[in-house]
């Protein structure tokens, strides 16, 4: 059952990320928002979560001046966020 996970905390919150990693399954989607977009600066994100499409909320990425050209992360608008919520059967908000 595909699940959308959202993460709004920065990489400083190690325990939260560990919980997410232990829960997320191949085919799920991860949306980074608020301080969660700082994960875009880490190359290891994509190695840790394989077969997971990762999005980052565009406005929050731009607000923090984060370059994402060289990452596999896709930018999402709030409309995309709404669509991802509806497309996935389940929703888990990590905070």
């Amino acid at each position, binding site marked *: 059952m595909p699940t959308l996970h959202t993460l709004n905390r920065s990489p400083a919150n190690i325990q939260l990320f560990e919980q997410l990693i232990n829960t997320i399954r191949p085919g799920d989607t991860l949306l980074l928002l608020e301080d969660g977009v700082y994960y875009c600066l880490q190359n290891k994100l994509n190695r840790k979560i394989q077969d997971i499409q990762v999005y980052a909320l565009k406005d929050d990425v731009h607000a923090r001046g984060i370059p994402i050209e060289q990452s596999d992360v896709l930018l999402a608008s*709030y409309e995309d966020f*709404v669509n991802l919520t509806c497309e996935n059967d389940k*929703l888990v908000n990590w905070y």
Partner: protein
Amino acid sequence: MKLSILVLGSPYNSQAAYSALRYTQAALDSGHEIYRVFFYQDGVHACSNLPAPPQDEFNTYEAWQTLQEKHELDCVTCIAAAARRGVLNEEESKRHNLPAFNLATQFSLSGLGQLIEANAESDRLVTFGA
């Protein structure tokens, strides 16, 4: 789809109230139904009508009030979380024998049952945590 929103963070301490506002706007623009917006824990601070942010800054409080009026949203504030943080309507203020009240009229005070019911009645409950 029928969506409900849970706001757990206060303006300035977290981005929760702002993110939830933008999400709710986008959902409405996309034609979805917002069943309820529930303000809980520090999120209840967003329901006060007394904050006066500088005029050149985005006013999250006013934006929520405007959005509620425009779409007649069911915006519910947790009564217990609000009372202990000094967010009161006139009735609660009198009941506690306090000198003032500050809950914006766009919000109604109610219990956690409203959150449970929103979760049961909606296709998705989107949590904006602090």
